C-alpha cells in the first residue's frame, strides 16, 4: 500500500471537525413527511365527487395506482394499487374503465361486479351526464369509440348494448378522428381530428355533423363536462361550448402542461389538470399559472444546483425547480417533448452540471456526448432550449468542471493524469483543484494526479460541498479533506449536487429530492 494511501472505515468517528448537515425538507414530492409519498410523476386520469378528487398515477398509462385527494387538502392517500384505467364522471357518479369493463366507484372503492361489460376494449370510452335530457344521452349512458372501425358503440345505463350510434367514417374530415367526448351542454357527441386538420366536430343523434361554428378550431385528446361546460384537454384545457363567441374560449394552463390527460374540479372554483408532470392545480384567479402540484419525482439519475435552480434528470425527462420551492411547487421546464425542442431528447442523462450563462450541460450515456439545456427558454418551439453539443466518449458516467475545463469519468477512467488503478464512475472537483473520484465501493482523493487517500464504503454519488465531500449510499456521509467522516445522516440517497452550503440528493424512498444545509456552527 502506498504510504500516503489509507483506508478509512465507515464506522469512523462522527462530528470530528465541527460541521453538520441539517435536513431542510423535500422538493418534488407533494406529500407531507408523515404521509406515504406519491410514487410517480405523471397522473393519467382524474375525476372528482363532492368530497374527493380521485386520480391514477403510474409509470405509464395503463399501469398505475388509484389515489384520493380530499377537497381542500394537499395530502393524498392511496386507495388501490394495480389500477390501469380511466376515471369517468357523469357529474353525480364516478366510474372506472378497466379494459372491457366499466365499474362504478363508491367512495373510491371499485365495486366487485362491473356495471358494464363492453365485450372488448375500445380506444375511448365516455359517459353521458346524469339526468341527460337531450341528444345522445336520452337513449344511452356509455359511448365507446373504435378508431380502427371508426364507429361509436353505445350502451344503456343497465348495460344493454345499442346499435352503433355514430359512424365517423361517414364524415369527410381531412384527418382521422382520434378522440371522443360527450357534450353535455347539447347532448351531442364530439370528436377531434388529428394533425394536420386539428378540428373538433359535433354530431347530433341522426349522425349529422353540425355546421355553424362547428367544427371548432383545435383538437383535444379527451373531453370532460364540468358544471355543464365541456372542456377538452391536450396541452392545458380549453372550453368547447355550443355557441362559442369569437375570442371567448376559456383556457386553463398551456404548453407547459403538455401532456394533459384530464381535467377535474377542485371542489371549489379551481381546477386540477392531470398531466405528465403531476396533478396540477389552477386557482380561478389565475388560470394560466399553476399554483401547486400533487405528485412525486422518482427515477432521478442526475442532479445539478446552480444559483438556486435545481435540475433533475429523470428517464427521458428533465425537470427544473428552485431550491426554495415548496414541496408541492409545480415542476418547470419539463424537457420531455423531444419534438417540441427539436433535439430528439430520448436519451440517458447520467450527469448534469451548470455551464456558462445559466445553462446546464447534461452528459448522456446513450449519445456518448453532452447536451446543452437552457431552462430560461420556455417559448414554444424554441430549439435553443435543448441542443446536442457533441463530445466523443466511450461510456461516460460523470463529469465535473473547473476553470473552464471538464473532467470526465469515461469508461471507468478519468480524462486527466492520475494514478488510479481501479475504475471510477463518479467525479467531482474542489475549487482548489483536488479531484474526488469514486466507484461503488470507494472514494478517492487526488491531488496533482496522485491519490492521497481512499475511503471505502457503499457509494452512489459524491459531491464537493465547500470544504467537504458529501457521499451518498446506504447513509449520507460528510467527509473532510482527510477522508474522515465528519457527520453521517440516516438518509439513503442516490444522485447528489451542491452549491454554497446547500446539498441536494435524490431519494428513492421519498420519490423526491431532499435538501440539506451545511451548518458549520454546530460542533
Amino acid at each position, binding site marked *: 500500500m502506498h504510504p500516503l494511501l489509507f483506508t478509512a472505515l465507515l464506522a469512523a468517528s462522527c462530528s470530528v471537525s465541527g460541521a453538520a448537515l441539517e435536513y431542510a425538507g423535500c422538493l418534488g414530492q407533494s406529500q407531507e413527511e408523515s404521509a406515504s409519498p406519491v410514487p410517480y410523476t405523471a397522473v393519467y386520469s382524474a375525476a372528482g365527487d363532492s368530497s374527493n378528487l380521485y386520480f391514477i398515477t403510474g409509470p405509464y398509462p395503463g399501469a398505475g395506482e388509484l389515489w384520493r385527494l380530499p377537497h381542500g387538502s394537499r395530502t393524498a392517500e392511496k386507495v388501490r394499487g394495480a389500477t390501469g384505467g380511466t376515471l369517468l364522471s357523469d357529474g353525480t357518479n364516478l366510474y372506472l374503465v378497466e379494459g372491457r369493463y366499466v365499474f362504478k366507484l363508491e367512495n373510491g372503492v371499485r365495486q366487485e361486479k362491473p356495471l358494464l361489460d363492453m365485450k372488448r376494449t375500445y380506444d375511448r370510452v365516455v359517459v353521458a351526464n346524469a339526468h341527460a335530457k337531450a341528444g345522445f344521452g336520452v337513449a344511452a349512458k356509455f359511448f365507446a369509440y373504435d378508431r380502427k372501425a371508426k364507429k361509436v358503440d353505445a350502451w344503456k345505463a343497465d348495460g344493454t348494448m345499442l346499435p352503433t350510434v355514430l359512424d365517423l367514417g361517414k364524415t369527410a374530415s381531412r384527418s382521422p378522428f382520434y378522440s371522443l367526448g360527450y357534450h353535455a351542454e347539447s347532448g351531442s357527441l364530439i370528436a377531434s381530428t388529428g394533425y394536420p386538420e386539428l378540428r373538433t366536430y359535433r354530431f347530433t343523434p341522426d349522425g349529422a355533423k353540425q355546421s355553424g361554428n362547428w367544427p371548432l378550431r383545435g383538437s383535444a385528446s379527451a373531453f370532460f363536462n364540468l358544471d355543464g361546460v365541456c372542456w377538452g384537454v391536450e396541452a392545458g384545457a380549453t372550453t368547447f361550448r355550443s355557441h362559442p363567441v369569437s375570442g*371567448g374560449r376559456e383556457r386553463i394552463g398551456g404548453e407547459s402542461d403538455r401532456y394533459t390527460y384530464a381535467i377535474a374540479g377542485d371542489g371549489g372554483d379551481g381546477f386540477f389538470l392531470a398531466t405528465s408532470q403531476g396533478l396540477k392545480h389552477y386557482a380561478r384567479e389565475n388560470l394560466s399559472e399553476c399554483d401547486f402540484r400533487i405528485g412525486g419525482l422518482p427515477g432521478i439519475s442526475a442532479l445539478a444546483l446552480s*444559483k438556486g435552480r435545481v435540475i433533475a434528470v429523470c428517464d427521458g425527462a428533465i425537470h427544473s425547480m428552485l431550491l426554495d420551492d415548496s414541496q408541492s411547487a409545480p415542476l418547470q421546464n419539463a424537457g420531455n417533448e423531444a419534438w417540441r425542442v427539436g433535439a430528439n431528447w430520448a436519451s440517458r442523462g447520467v450527469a448534469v452540471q451548470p455551464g456558462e450563462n445559466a445553462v446546464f450541460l447534461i452528459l448522456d450515456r446513450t449519445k456518448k456526448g453532452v447536451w446543452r439545456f437552457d431552462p430560461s427558454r420556455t417559448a414554444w418551439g424554441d430549439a435553443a432550449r435543448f441542443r446536442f453539443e457533441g463530445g466523443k466518449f466511450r461510456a461516460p458516467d460523470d463529469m465535473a468542471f473547473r476553470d473552464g475545463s471538464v473532467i470526465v469519468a469515461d469508461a471507468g477512467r478519468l480524462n486527466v493524469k492520475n494514478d488510479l488503478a481501479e475504475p471510477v464512475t463518479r467525479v467531482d472537483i474542489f475549487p482548489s483543484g483536488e479531484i474526488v473520484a469514486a466507484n461503488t465501493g470507494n472514494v478517492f482523493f487526488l491531488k496533482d494526479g496522485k491519490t492521497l487517500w481512499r475511503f471505502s464504503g457503499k457509494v452512489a454519488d459524491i459531491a464537493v460541498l465547500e470544504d467537504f465531500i458529501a457521499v451518498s449510499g446506504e447513509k449520507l456521509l460528510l467527509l473532510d479533506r482527510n477522508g474522515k467522516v465528519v457527520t453521517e445522516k440516516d438518509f439513503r440517497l442516490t444522485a447528489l449536487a451542491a452549491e454554497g452550503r446547500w446539498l441536494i440528493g435524490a431519494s428513492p424512498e421519498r420519490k423526491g429530492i431532499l*435538501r440539506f444545509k451545511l451548518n458549520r456552527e454546530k460542533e
Partner: protein
Amino acid sequence: MKLHFMVPAFSLMIFSSVSAAVLTGDTSNPYNSLFKPGENIILSFRVEGLPAGKKETLLLDFQDQNGKSRKMQQVPFQADGKGAWHGEISDVPRAEYGFYRVMAKLSDGTLLRKTGSRPAGCLTYAVVPDPALRKVHPPEDSFFGLHGNSRGKATLGPWIGCRWGMRIMEKDREAFLKARKNAAWVFYSYEVFRGPTSVFNLLTSQQKKGNLIGNEQSLRPVTPEGERLIAEVYRNIAKRGLDQKGFDKNMRYQVLWEPDLYLSDDDIVRIYRIARKAIREADPEALILGPCFSHIGLGSVDAHRRLFEKGFLDYVDEVTLHPYIPYPVEENGLVENIRALRETVEKYARGRKIGIRANEAGYSAVATPAEERIQMYGQLRAALILLGEGILSNEPFYGYDHDSSGKGDYGLTYNLTIPHHIWGTERVAPRPVFPALAAASFLLEGHRPTSVIEYLGDTVLGYSYADRNDHCVIALWDFSGRSARVRIETGRGQIQVADMMGNVKSVKTDGGSLALALTEAPVYILDVDPKLWGRNAERKIIPDTLSPQGIAGESVTISGSIQENGALSVKPPATFRMEETAIPVRKGSRYSVKIRIPRTLSEGRYPFLLNLKGADGRILSSTGVRVQVRPPVALEQEQAVCSADGSFGIRFKLRNLSGRACGGSVSSRIPGVPECTRKIKFRLEGKQSGEYLLLFPGFEPSPFEIWKTELLVETDSGYRAKRKGEFNFLAASYLPGVGRNADFSAWKTPDYLDLPQECVRAPGFHGGKNDLSGRIAFGWNEEYFLVNIRVRDDVFFQKATGRNLWNGDSVQLGFARARTIPRTTNSVGEQLLLAFSEINAALTPNGPEAWRAYSFDPENLKTGSLSNVELPRDISVSENADGSTEILYRIAVPWHFLNLKNVQAGMSVYCAGTVNDRDAEFARQNDVSAIGFFKLKRLPPKNFGGVILKK
C-alpha cells in the same frame, strides 16, 4: 484516449461560405419601390462573379413586417460565359396592402448586396393606397404630414398622404413658381428659417459682430441693433412669403427650432416678440408657430409652463412641439403629457384658442426587424394618439435614412444612395413603418376625434374619429405586448375591420357588438354608427367618474346620469363572475349600480361596459368605466435593510385601506434562496398602518447582483396579492467625521467589495483583470455619502481636464435619492424626488478634479467643475511592485447633492458608476474602456443599485 477540452469548445462555430459572386436586385419602381394595388411588380436580380457556366439557385423568401413568410421561391439559373446572370421575377405577393421584405440569397450563401442603408440580404417594397384616391381636405381637417421628403420620382408625399410639412422660402416668386411647376399634390406648410433662410445665414459676420452671439440655432441678439437686424430678416422673409402662398391661405412661420436645447426662456420669449412684430408688419395675417420644444418626456410639460409664465403664448398662434418619446409611447406617458400640455396652453392662453402641432418626432431604428417594428408601432400609435388628442397635425421624422453610417436611423424608408448622396436622395425603399402610416392617413385623413376609448382594458387604448360627414372610424390596440380580447359596440350588424396596413375584411357582429383580439398592431373599425360615435353623438350615458374605486371583498358603485329612456346594461368583466345587469332608466334620471367585488380579486383596473338600449333593443349609446380595485391591505414602501449584525432583509409598510379590522400574514421569498423564505403575521384596525420587517439570517448575497423578491400578502378573508420587486443588498458603514475637510484618514479599513470584472465600455480596449480591476467601499455620516474606490491599472493615463476628464483614467459616478417614483405631471417635482446627478472625478494634470456632468437642479447645483470644498475628495496614484499603478479615489458627496438633509440609518440611497481606463493617446485608443457597478448609463437612475445606510 485522454480528452481534456474546454467548456467553450461545446459551442459550435459556424463559418459562412466565402463567395466572389455579387448579387444585386431592385424592383420595377427603383425610385421608391412603392406600388398601387393591382400594379404589376417585377423584381430584377443580377449576379456577377460566378464561375462561367455555373449552375446556381436564387432563393427568395417574401416576408411581412413580422418576419412571417408569405411565399418562398427558388429560381434555378446558369451563369453565362462571363459568370453573370440576370433574371426577373413577376409573380410576387402583391394582393394585400402592406410591407414586403424579400430575403434574397444564392444557394451558396451569397446575400443580396447591401445598398445604402438597406441591409444585406433583402430588398423591400410596399403596396399602399393609390395617391389618386386620396381626398383633399382643408388645412383644418388635414392632420398627416411628413418631415423630410425624397426628391424626383422618389417623392414620398402622395404615397404616405402627407399634407403638412416644412418649407424653405424661395428667393422670389419666380423661383417659387419654378419650384412648384407641375406640383399638383396639395400640401400645407410653414417656413422654418433654416438653411438659406436662416437668420444666421442672412446676416453677415460684420452685422453679427458685437450685436448677436451664438451659432445657427443659438443665435440671439445682445444689443438693440442685434434685435433690429434679426427683426429685419424675419420681416423680409415674411414679405417674400406674400408672393409664395401656394396652397396656404395663411402663411405660417416657425421662428425657432428646438430652442429649449440652445436658448434660455428669456431669450426665446424675446426673439419671438421681435419676430412676431416683424412678421406681422409684413403680413398681418401670418400665423406664428412655436416654441417647438424638442420632446414630450419627463420635464417637458413643465418646461413649457415656465416659458408660458413669461408670456410666450402672446407671441404665437399655434403651439408646435416635437413629441419624441420612448416606446411604448403609452407607458411612457404620451397621452398624459399631451393632455397636460393642452391644459397648460389653455391656462396661459388668456382665452385665445391655441392649437398644437407636432412637427417632428420619430424613432431611430437600426435596420433590424426588431427595431423596425418598434419604429412602426411607435410612429403609428403616436400618430393615432396625437390625432385622437386633438393635435392639429403630425410630421413623422424622417422621410429617409440620413446617417452616413448606413446602418439605418430615423428614416421611414431606406436611403439607397447613402453615403454618396444623402440629402435629397432620389432612391429610397420602404421600411415597415411607411405602409402603416400610409394606411392610417388613407383611413383617417379628414377625421377629427370624437371620443377616447380607455375603458376596455388596462392596456387597451383607442379613439373614435369622425369626418365632416360624420363618417366614423375607431382605432384600437393593446399596448402591453400581449393580446387582449375586447368587445365594442358598433351599431352595425356587419362591419368592416381594417388591419394596420389597411386590409379590410367584413365581420359579422353580435347584434352590433364586435369581439376583437387586440395586439400592439392597431386595427381600424370602419364606418361605425355615428349615433354612437359621431361628432353629434349624444352622450346619453354620463358616468360620474370614469374610474370608480373599490376594495376587494367590498362593493363599488357605478353611477351617473342618463339622457334618454331605455335600459342600461352594465357588463362586467369575466373576472367579476357576475351576470350582465340591466336596469330601466328614464331620461334625466340618475343610475346607480352596486357591484360586489370578489374578495380574491387582485388589484387592477377592470373594464365595465355601459350600454343604453332603446325599447326595440337597439343600442342608443355605449361607453364604459374602469373600476379601480384596491387591495384590502396595501403593501407599500418596500426597502432593503441591513440589521446591526449584518443580516439583510426587507422592510415594508402595510396599510389597511378598508374601514374594518384586518389580519393575515406576509411571506417573503427570493426564488432559489431558502434563507429568504420568511413569514410574519399582522393585524391592523380599520385605516391603520404599520411597519414590518422580514430579516433573512444566513442570506449572503453578492452585493452587485439584483435579486428578484416576492412578498405575498394573505388576509384572513382570503385575499392574496403577490408583490414582486427587485433589490440589491449592499450596506454603507457609518464613519463619523470622515470626509470633512477632505480628511479620509479615519477610514482605515474599508470593507472593500470587488467590482464586477465585466467590461461595460469599449471592450476592444479592455485587457481583462491585469489591465483594470477595482474594489469599492461605501460609507456615510451625517454630512456625506462616502465612496472609496481602489483601482489597479496596468498603466495610469490621464491627460484630459474639466468636462473631458472622463476620457482618461477616472471614475464616473451617478447618485440618486430614488430609482423610480410614481409618474406625475409635475416633472420638476419628479426631478427633485429622483435627485439624479452624475459626477466624474480623476487625478488630472490639474490635480484631483471633479466635474458635475448632470444635475437634477441646474439652477442651484450647476454642471461644471466642483471645488474641493463643494466635493471633498482625495485622489492619489501609487506604484505597485509589479509596475502597475494603484489609483485611490476617496470622495465625500454632501447630502444636498442627493437633495437630502436629515439622513438616518436604515435609509437607502442609489448609485452606479464606471471606472474608466485609458492606456494610450486617442490616436491609439479612441475610447476609454471601463468596468462598473450597476448601470450608470441605462435610463439613469432606474438601474442604479441601492446602498443601505447601516449603523
